[in-house]
């Protein structure tokens, strides 16, 4: 009798029979995250289509005489939107107009090439998210890693193979140090990682700019430009499918990194501690986990992963020498990639490929249809926005809410600061 208060909600689902389970599964699919993701992508594309149509000159013209010949407008809208999206598709996945398969499939390899640094940096940002930290320092970590890897690649002479590995290790170390500083400061002094990463972005930028115009450091000999010499052939990622495609072996490092992060987070004890600290630092501390060390290790690994993106840029994508713009905004794109991938390694992998496809296709679309590539950024942002707000998407498409019978989750307002946890 005394235990009746507690038994009501528990044990209900475990006794679910077969048919109930099937219904539940169906509910999870329609109401769950997979469906939400698909709808979010569709809806974002629709908004993109509206923007493309509205700003199209031909559409604006035909809208002027809409009432006399409405079909002209509809045709113009269709042409604008279909033209843009088909160019996007053909530029990112498969080119139907190509004469043979090997040429037709080239866009897909372009997509993977663009995806490579996005995935690496996304993994870094996502890992930090899982430990409860916001790493906006992608730019700095990429620059330092690129500088370190690049210097080894053009200034050091080593046999092929070893040279590449040493260059990669140098880059990883650079990223790890730049990220580790953040973790160290947060652990030792409670400094907010958002400020420190932003500040370190600038410090790294100016440091690299200085090195790029200093002869004997990163500057190409005999040149006045703030640019490095080309990487030595022994330190460059080999092409995966021959010189016809841009895709290089850097993609394999990113696959390996994804597997590593998956293992780290779900199979290793260090990852267990990472997640524990990310979810509840005070409980982790009480359970004997060294929260300070976790912040340090997590930021170092996060920085190394983001650094891998920088390494891929200099040893794979731009091997003819680089300037201080080598990060190409990937450090910030990585934040959206990590969010779309829900900070899970394979989710980030998929999100990185999707965004890589948008990037590859966006260039093709801009060239073929004159639609600015920036539309891709809009679509990407909308996707993440919709995915982040499942209730909104459900409301728009009248989907059922999963687990409706659950008691509303009451979140107490925590007054204890994480800083305090760190300070103890």
């Amino acid at each position, binding site marked *: 009798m005394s235990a009746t208060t507690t038994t009501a909600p528990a044990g209900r689902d475990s006794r679910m029979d077969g048919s109930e389970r099937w219904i539940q599964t169906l509910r999870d699919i329609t109401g769950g995250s997979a469906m939400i993701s698909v709808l979010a992508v569709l809806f974002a594309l629709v908004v993109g289509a509206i923007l493309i149509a509205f700003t199209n000159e031909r559409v604006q013209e035909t809208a002027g005489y809409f009432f006399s010949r409405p079909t002209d407008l509809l045709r113009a809208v269709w042409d604008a939107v279909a033209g843009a999206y088909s160019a996007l598709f053909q530029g990112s996945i498969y080119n139907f107009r190509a004469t043979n398969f090997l040429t037709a499939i080239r866009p897909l390899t372009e997509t993977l090439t663009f995806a490579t640094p996005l995935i690496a940096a996304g993994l870094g940002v996502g890992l930090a998210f899982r430990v409860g930290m916001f790493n906006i320092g992608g730019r700095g970590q990429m620059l330092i890693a690129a500088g370190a890897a690049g210097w080894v690649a053009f200034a050091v002479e080593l046999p092929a193979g070893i040279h590449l590995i040493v260059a990669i290790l140098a880059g990883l170390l650079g990223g790890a140090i730049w990220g580790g500083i953040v973790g160290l400061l947060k652990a030792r*002094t409670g*400094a907010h990682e958002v*400020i420190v990463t932003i*500040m370190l972005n600038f410090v790294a930028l100016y440091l690299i700019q200085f090195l790029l115009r200093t002869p004997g450091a990163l500057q190409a000999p005999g040149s006045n430009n703030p640019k490095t010499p080309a990487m030595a052939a022994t330190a460059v990622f080999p092409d995966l499918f021959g010189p016809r495609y841009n895709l290089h072996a850097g993609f394999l490092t990113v696959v390996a990194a994804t597997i590593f992060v998956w293992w780290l987070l779900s199979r290793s004890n260090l990852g267990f501690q990472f997640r524990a600290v990310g979810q509840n630092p005070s409980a982790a501390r009480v359970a004997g986990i060294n929260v300070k060390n976790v912040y340090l290790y997590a930021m170092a690994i996060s920085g190394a992963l983001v650094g891998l993106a920088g390494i891929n840029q200099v040893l794979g994508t731009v091997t003819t020498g680089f300037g201080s713009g080598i990060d190409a905004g990937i450090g910030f794109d990585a934040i959206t990639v990590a*969010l779309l991938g829900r900070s899970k390694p394979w989710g980030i992998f998929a999100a990185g490929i999707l965004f890589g496809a948008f990037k590859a296709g966006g260039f093709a679309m801009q060239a073929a249809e004159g639609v600015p590539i*920036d539309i891709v950024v809009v679509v990407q*942002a909308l996707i993440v926005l919709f995915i982040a707000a499942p209730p909104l998407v459900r409301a728009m498409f009248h989907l059922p809410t999963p687990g409706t019978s659950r008691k509303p989750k009451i979140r107490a*307002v925590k007054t204890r*600061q994480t*800083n305090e946890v760190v300070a103890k």
Partner: protein
Amino acid sequence: MSTLTQSSAPASTPIVKPAAQIRSWKIPITFGSFAVLSLFLFVVLGRGLRGELSTFRLSEGRDLIQLPEVALPTFATGVFVAVVLVLMAAASAWLVYRHTKIPIVLTILFALLFLVGFLAWAASGSTIPVPGLLIGTVTLSAPLIFGALGGVLSERAGVVNVAIEGQLLAGAFSSAVVASATGNPYLGLLAAMVAGALVSMVLAAFVLKYLVDQVIVGVVLNVLVIGLTSFLYSQVLAPSANLNSPDVFPRLNVPFLSEIPIIGPVLFRQTIIVYVMYVAIALVYFGLFRTKWGLRVRAVGEHPQAADTVGINVNRTRFIAVTLGGVISGFGGAYFTLGAVGAFNKEMTNGMGFIALAAVIFGQWHPIKATLAALLFGFATNLQNVLGIIGSPVPSEFMLMLPYVVTIFAVAGFVGRSRAPAADGKPYIK
């Protein structure tokens, strides 16, 4: 039990214990680091500058009251500053050892002295136009200050505002378009406020209605605004230039005030945007700390349940505060187009929104302190410009780096344990 035998119970007095004996070495360590840095820069590196003079020009040519130029011997000044800084670091260590609180004046003096030493060293053999340096500081800080004020308002109400960058950019874009289309820059300012408000209303809607993580929405909104403005720029503004050529606000001299030496040119020879900024700083401070509305906003950001139980509508209060924050940040965006460049460019805010966010945190969520933090960043940016013109003994990149390094030290050394509004970033669910 009717007789009231109220004694002031022992438990109703606070549990006061003698101040405990913990020493925090953060400040001495920070001071020490800077003292060592100045020894290295001013004395070791500065040896080569013996015999050079560093000149500070305190007046502009058109000022009514002309102050004389101040010329300091570079090396001697450097040695003097370095020695005093070392002494001050030692003094702070001694104070900590004696369990005495380090007076804030000491910190301020330390910072000022370091700055003087640094400027003297950097300007060896040439002249630093002090008014020019400071005028530029105020001008360049304007968007940062607006952004920081917007952030402070939003975060005081408990909504983390990472979308400052987006609000600034939206303000810049719409002010350029509207000012160009109507030929009236004041309408441009209005449009900037509306655009900033729209961005923050989206933030508020997602955060308050759909309970989406506040940082995520903020980041994504930044990307969305960057994408939208860049797309519209390429597609609409670039082809037809008449939509992107607004009039730039001229500098207005305030009579009398602008003739005060140093302060006059710095504060009172600015554009209308900067004058509005002064008003905005005062209004945000007054609004937050002196009015009924501000009390409620802060209550909602600190303890939303407590606010709810006294009949305050938490989400509505938050919505209004966030929207107002957007209005202010958006107005700051107009600086880029109507106050400086005179045309919109892709991503022209260039990360200033994030610096403003840093100023919010560095400024401990306080409008005045955040303004000071923003001024520090503005000073840093302008110092680069000035030193770039006069030339300096060290690579300009290291000069540029310095303010960011200083910020890291400051955040680690002084405000590491600063307290955000207790409910900042947390949705309120009954």
